[in-house]
């Protein structure tokens, strides 16, 4: 069981890395972009397959605020993922160029851009939901005490600073118009450093993760206040 969980976390880390590479369409060639998309699709299938226990429990038990939040995030995730995959397949120029549904119209391109940008945010929220779980996991494998100063003060401080920077990067890179079909063709700076791109998009993801943690905190806080 523990071995399986380790593999799952490892594949999640790889998935995050692929996600950032996909957002950087210009960092790799179009051909690689399509392959990475395909690999991510397969890994997501695997991810869902390994977590069927969550799906099985879907109709059991009561729904508290946290569970509703988690379910809505995952449902959104599924929808956006499907629209990103379908529009991606329609746009494909290398792997599936002559598919019957191939279309390079403005609409398909915009759907693809909007859904992947929403997807990044929702994936970040999804990550935030599991943040505590992942933190416990890394504490265990690296033998760090969860109540140490590192885990309770230093790391949260570092991550919050990165998350705030992520909001700045989101604004500075003008990501908002992408979410609302405002962009015809994405802008990619072919001269910027690859490291900076990964860093910025990692920070943006981290801000999303922190956002969902704040949401969770607000919910549990309200519940505690009620008691």
């Amino acid at each position: 069981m523990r071995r399986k969980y380790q593999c799952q976390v490892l594949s999640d880390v790889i998935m995050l890395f692929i996600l950032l590479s996909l957002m950087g369409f210009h960092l790799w060639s179009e051909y690689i972009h399509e392959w990475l998309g395909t690999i991510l699709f397969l890994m997501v299938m695997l991810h869902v397959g390994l977590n069927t226990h969550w799906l099985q429990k879907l109709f059991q038990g009561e729904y508290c605020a946290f569970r509703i939040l988690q379910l809505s995030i995952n449902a959104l995730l599924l929808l956006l993922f499907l629209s990103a995959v379908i529009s991606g397949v329609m746009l494909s120029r290398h792997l599936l160029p002559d598919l019957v549904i191939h279309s390079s119209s403005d609409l398909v391109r915009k759907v693809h851009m909007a859904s992947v940008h929403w997807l990044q945010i929702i994936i970040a929220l999804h990550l935030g939901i599991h943040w505590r779980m992942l933190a416990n996991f890394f504490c265990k494998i690296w033998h760090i005490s969860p109540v140490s100063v590192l885990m309770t003060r230093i790391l949260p401080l570092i991550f919050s600073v990165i998350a705030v920077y992520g909001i700045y990067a989101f604004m500075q890179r003008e990501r908002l118009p992408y979410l609302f079909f405002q962009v015809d063709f994405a802008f990619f700076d072919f001269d910027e450093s690859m490291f900076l791109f990964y860093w910025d998009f990692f920070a943006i993801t981290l801000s999303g993760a922190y956002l969902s943690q704040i949401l969770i905190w607000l919910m549990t806080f309200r519940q505690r206040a009620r008691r």
Partner: protein
Amino acid sequence: MKKIFILLLAVTFSSLNAIAEPVNSHAQRTLIVYFSQPENVKLDGVDGVSGASILQKNGQISGSTQYLAQIIQRYTGGELFRIETVTPYPTQHEPLLRYAEQEQRDNRYPELKTKIDNLTDYDRVFIGYPIWWYKMPMPLYSFLQQHDLSGKTLIPFTSHGGSRFSDSLREIKRLQPDARLVTQGLAISRDDVADDGTVTRVGDWLNKLTSVQQ
């Protein structure tokens, strides 16, 4: 005698200066090369806003890159050269998208109507184009392969649909390694080309360019 000499010197110098000024601004003989593909859309409807590269300005219809080229010409007094292909491109938006995509996929270099023979007459070449599928349109590849722009200053400008210069600067550098490529090119969104401020914006950009170059 000394006074006369100084006076003479002063006169020569000032007249030299007077001559030097216009000569200096004309010293850079300028060519403005552009590729522009106007699209047929209804200009009075919403369609014009959705970003087709057509422009109706002062009752004249032109492509948006063409319009930019004309403004640059007004400021610099350079000569205009329009890159035209033997086989014309579709004028409707979606067919044009598809056509350009297929052309890129096949890596097809379209045949150009004319070639510039007197390139030696120019020192400074403005080069303008839209961005199609994150690249320069293929006619630009044809043009850059058929002409030797070594030693000339290349100044790019584009009317784009959001992707600014995309990878085109890198491609120009690759195709013309011995040209001096100015990287502070002018990138205007095709949605903004028709704005009233565009003329002054082009002027400001040109001023900044000359101050950087001197």
